């Protein structure tokens, strides 16, 4: 389980990084950020990149900032940066809660938020957050920069909208209204394992009913997504069991879950239904 040989590049600026990437991408070049997903696949020789462009030395990519109502997460910001809330209130708290489910403590010291998005594992907590909470993702290449909406970014299992010469430099979230409530739950076989399913819920209350409801499900399908039919069951309803169960039932009806050797579609669907309700209950409590 030793990785195949590769050429190592360690640019110190984004400009150099994208220039190098443009050069080596056609020749099986890849970005190395936290490496916590890439390096194991290299150890199994499932990935055999011929070039790795290590972005860990690029200082500006370590930037985590909150300004003008936007949370900006640079490409080298580690999961551990969220161990304590990065801002007060529900949004900071929910990111901390989600971070606690990513692998294990040492993995979180090294793995990065943006790396999780670029990896696009269906069970990624951050991918679920990006999709459910409308992140905008900045990609940079020698051709210039562009911004991709969270919902459009993930195209399938381990597949994103990034072109091979593009570096994901930053993810941004517009800060939700301060009174937004959040709930997140996931179920995995053991502590730290990839979740078999997960649910992220948020809503605001206005006149005793829910508004701006969002309900995202991850780990169940080939990519996380918001379940619009479930959100429709929530908006305009008072928070509570009838609405939550109706939304959870909509999740079960709408999902087309993945199957694998140990997990049937039926089980994943039941699980997602249960987790959707629990996430909503958690948001309401």
């Amino acid at each position, binding site marked *: 389980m*030793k990785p195949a040989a590769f050429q190592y590049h360690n640019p110190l600026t984004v400009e150099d990084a994208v220039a190098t990437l443009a050069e080596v991408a056609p020749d099986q070049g890849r970005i190395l950020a936290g490496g916590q997903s890439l*390096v194991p696949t290299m150890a199994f020789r499932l990935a055999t990149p011929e070039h790795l462009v290590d972005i860990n030395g690029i200082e500006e990519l370590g930037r985590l900032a909150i300004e003008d109502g936007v949370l900006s997460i640079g490409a080298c910001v580690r999961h551990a940066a969220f161990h304590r809330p990065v801002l007060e209130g529900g949004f900071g708290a929910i990111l901390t809660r989600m971070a606690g489910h990513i692998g*294990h403590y040492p993995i979180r010291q*090294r793995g990065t938020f943006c790396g999780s998005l670029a990896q696009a594992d269906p069970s990624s907590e951050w991918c679920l957050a990006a999709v459910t909470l409308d992140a905008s993702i900045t990609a940079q290449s020698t051709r210039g920069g562009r911004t991709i909406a969270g919902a459009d970014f993930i195209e399938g299992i381990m597949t994103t909208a990034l072109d091979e010469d593009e570096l994901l430099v930053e993810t941004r979230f517009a800060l939700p209204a301060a009174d937004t409530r959040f709930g997140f739950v996931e179920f995995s076989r*053991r502590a*730290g394992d990839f979740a078999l399913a997960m649910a992220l819920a948020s809503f605001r209350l206005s006149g005793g009913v829910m508004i701006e409801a969002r309900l995202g499900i991850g780990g169940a399908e080939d990519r996380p997504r918001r379940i619009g039919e479930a959100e429709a069951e929530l908006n305009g309803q008072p928070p509570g069991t009838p609405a939550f169960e109706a939304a959870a039932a909509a999740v079960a009806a709408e999902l087309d879950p993945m199957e694998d050797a140990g997990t049937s579609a039926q089980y994943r669907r039941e699980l997602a239904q249960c987790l959707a309700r629990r996430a909503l209950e958690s948001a309401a409590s």
Partner: protein
Amino acid sequence: MTDKHDLTLTINGFDHAITVDARRTLADAIRDQCGQTGTHIGCEHGVCGSCTVLLDGVPVRSCLIFAVQCEGLAIRTVEGLAEGDELHPLQRSFIKHHALQCGFCTPGFLMLAVGILENEPNIADADLRELLSSNLCRCTGYANIVKAVRAAADELREGR
């Protein structure tokens, strides 16, 4: 294809000038190039935690980092825990609470625990157990490891 790099790894305060392929993991370099075999390799895919070392003060899996990425970083391994014959409180606690049997996972657990306690000295019991779930042990059933780390945490806090 070879991509050789000359670099210096700083392990427990000592410099090791080595030449490695870019693909050589930090775990392999620490063991084979620097001769520090206390860091063990149990899975090489980042799950078991036997290879846990401290990198600039935080615990990481040394099988998931390339040696070439670690120049200039402070690496701490199990060999650096004791000061001369004076064992680290965690080491003493592991002996006292029978927190090891075969001892293969022990260096990884020690470095994980050192990293946790240095960064989270006031950690609550439930959180400690959760963080200790990072590494695998196949002999002890964990209870004594948790006990040993808890006891050492209390000792370290009181000593502060």
